[in-house]
């Protein structure tokens, strides 16, 4: 290589944080211009897998040499907008870009069925825009920027949900839009209040100023506003009412994508504000956030799983199960200890893998059977053995069976509650897992032990383009259940960093 080439490569790789946002944003416009479904898909695939590769590079760099700070346009913080990547958001970015890429890989066949082919290039443009917003929210170091990226990802996700095949997709999208906008506006209000007392929008600078300032009423109100705002986007019980409809009536691919990314990034934003900006003493000492979040988290774990048991539509059942799983993540946050927060962050990683896998199975069932009602699963265990086996693996992981990722996250959550002396909470975690066993078992029973009706048409196994992504995800739930060093190692390092505990 010549000197000039080496120079160019280092220059480009130094700009990776900015490219992570700029490339998907511009490619969304390219998708609109090419107007051909396959060409737009190819563009989106290259961009999504490229983003994943770049997220891997960024993560390895953060692990090697610490936090990366990138001054956008050369304006240095706290005046300019900073992109700041540390262990926490490098991990979240990795999850988000991976899910974007793998779901996109599986999308072709499912979209052919669910969305009119004239609209495919617009779908991919929206998908990339949503990805831009999610990646931007994750890596930005500027509070107002979080709001802007939140709205970019939200607006595109409303439009994506509205693409669903039934007319109820429209009302679900509008319901989500109304609630999501209220949430976003509360976040904006909270950021405004912090700006009022600190005079800065840079997250790191905010943290310094707030620590120097000590508790004051405006700051507490700001924390409450941001808590409610992110709570709506994250679907904390009882602010979750938009979620079941949106996930049920959205196109199957959109559900697999959003269920594994949008709520996860909202969780990241909440963690970032609670621990990095306000700090543990203020959030848990002054405002007693744990007293609010812990009961809500436990209520979510039970209410979500309990309602899931009675659903006839399996896609809707998985949506309610998401409400419960979000409860586990929030529980980890509310414990505010290294083990608890590690459990919450590991569960972010784990739940993203298993839920996108399960929803991709739903995409296959919609493709082959045309419905995700429980009756449609009759006999599928024999007729689609590979797909249903993946459902069982990911489902067991949702229950938290040892050797799967679900066990790893619940282990840390139980440890965290025992360390805090809250043994009833540990018991409740185990009990709620049994509820998950019931709703997964209902599907397994119908799929494996009930014969398909005689008049049922012959169904084939899932197309290979969907089977491979599904098995990558299902395999991931086992792989990361056994080799935990990547997920748990990073999550516990991030938790220690957030709580200011030495490594």
């Amino acid at each position, binding site marked *: 290589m010549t000197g000039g080439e080496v120079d160019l490569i280092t220059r480009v790789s130094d700009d990776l944080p900015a490219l992570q946002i700029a490339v998907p944003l511009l490619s969304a416009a390219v998708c609109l211009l090419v107007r051909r479904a396959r060409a737009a898909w190819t563009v989106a695939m290259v961009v999504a897998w490229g983003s994943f590769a770049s997220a891997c590079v960024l993560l390895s760099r953060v692990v090697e040499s610490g936090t990366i700070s990138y001054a956008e346009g050369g304006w240095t913080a706290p005046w300019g907008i900073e992109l700041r990547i540390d262990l926490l958001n490098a991990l979240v970015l990795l999850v988000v870009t991976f899910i974007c890429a793998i779901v996109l890989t599986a999308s072709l066949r499912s979209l052919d069925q669910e969305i009119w082919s004239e609209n495919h290039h617009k779908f991919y443009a929206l998908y990339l825009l949503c990805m831009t917003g999610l990646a931007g929210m994750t890596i930005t170091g500027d509070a107002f920027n979080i709001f802007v990226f939140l*709205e970019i990802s939200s607006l595109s996700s*409303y439009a994506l949900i509205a693409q669903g095949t039934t007319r*109820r997709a*429209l*009302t679900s999208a*509008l319901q989500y839009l109304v609630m999501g906008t*209220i949430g976003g506006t509360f976040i904006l209000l909270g950021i*405004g209040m912090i700006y*009022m007392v600190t005079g800065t929008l840079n997250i790191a600078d905010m943290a310094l100023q707030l620590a120097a300032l000590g508790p004051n009423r405006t700051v507490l109100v700001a924390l409450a506003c941001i808590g409610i705002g992110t709570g709506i986007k994250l679907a904390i019980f009882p602010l979750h009412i938009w979620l079941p409809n949106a996930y049920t009536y959205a196109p199957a691919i959109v559900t697999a994508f959003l269920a594994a990314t949008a709520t996860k990034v909202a969780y990241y934003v909440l963690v970032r504000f609670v621990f990095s900006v306000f700090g543990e003493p203020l959030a848990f000492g002054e405002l007693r956030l744990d007293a609010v979040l812990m009961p809500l988290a436990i209520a979510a774990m039970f209410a979500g799983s309990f309602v899931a048991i009675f659903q006839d539509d399996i896609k809707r059942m998985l949506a309610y199960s998401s409400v419960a799983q979000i409860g586990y993540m929030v529980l980890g946050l509310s414990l505010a200890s290294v083990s608890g927060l590690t459990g919450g962050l590991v569960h972010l990683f784990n739940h993203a893998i298993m839920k996108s896998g399960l929803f991709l199975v739903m995409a296959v069932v919609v493709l082959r059977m045309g419905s995700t009602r429980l009756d449609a699963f009759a006999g599928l265990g024999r007729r689609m053995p590979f797909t249903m086996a993946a459902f069982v693996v990911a489902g067991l992981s949702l229950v938290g069976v040892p050797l799967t990722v679900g066990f790893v996250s619940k282990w840390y959550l139980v440890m965290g509650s025992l360390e805090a002396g809250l043994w009833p909470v540990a018991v409740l975690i185990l009990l709620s897992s049994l509820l998950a066993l019931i709703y997964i078992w209902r599907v397994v029973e119908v799929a494996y032990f009930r014969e398909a009706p005689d008049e049922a048409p012959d169904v084939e196994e899932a197309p290979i383009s969907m089977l491979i992504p599904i098995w990558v995800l299902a395999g991931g739930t086992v792989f990361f259940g056994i080799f935990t060093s990547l997920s748990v190692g990073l999550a516990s390092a991030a938790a220690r960093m957030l709580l200011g505990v030495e490594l």
Partner: protein
Amino acid sequence: MFEGGLYPYWIVIFLMMTGLYVVISRDNLVKKVIGLNIFQVSVIMFYVAMGKVRGGTAPIEAEGFTVFSNPLPHVLMLTAIVVGVATTALALALVVRINEAYETIEEDEIRELEREEEA
């Protein structure tokens, strides 16, 4: 910042609660969207009130002027206004599609239709 009373903030709270009330209480989807808009506007007013300094001028350095308003919150609100317009446009587009699909934009009637569909 607080010189001369807090009345802009009272207006903010009044607008905010009005917007939220309209969103919750109205069944007509267009009215809901308008309520949402009022809710967003209240936060825009909050930022504008925060940046204004009594007796301050636009932040242009010139002889004889020493007190300036803070331009940053005002500039931020340009972005928030764009977000608000985009949200409203998307919401109204959805309402148009809902009207085509259900032939009504009253939420109670839509809910009735959906219940019939399920039964």
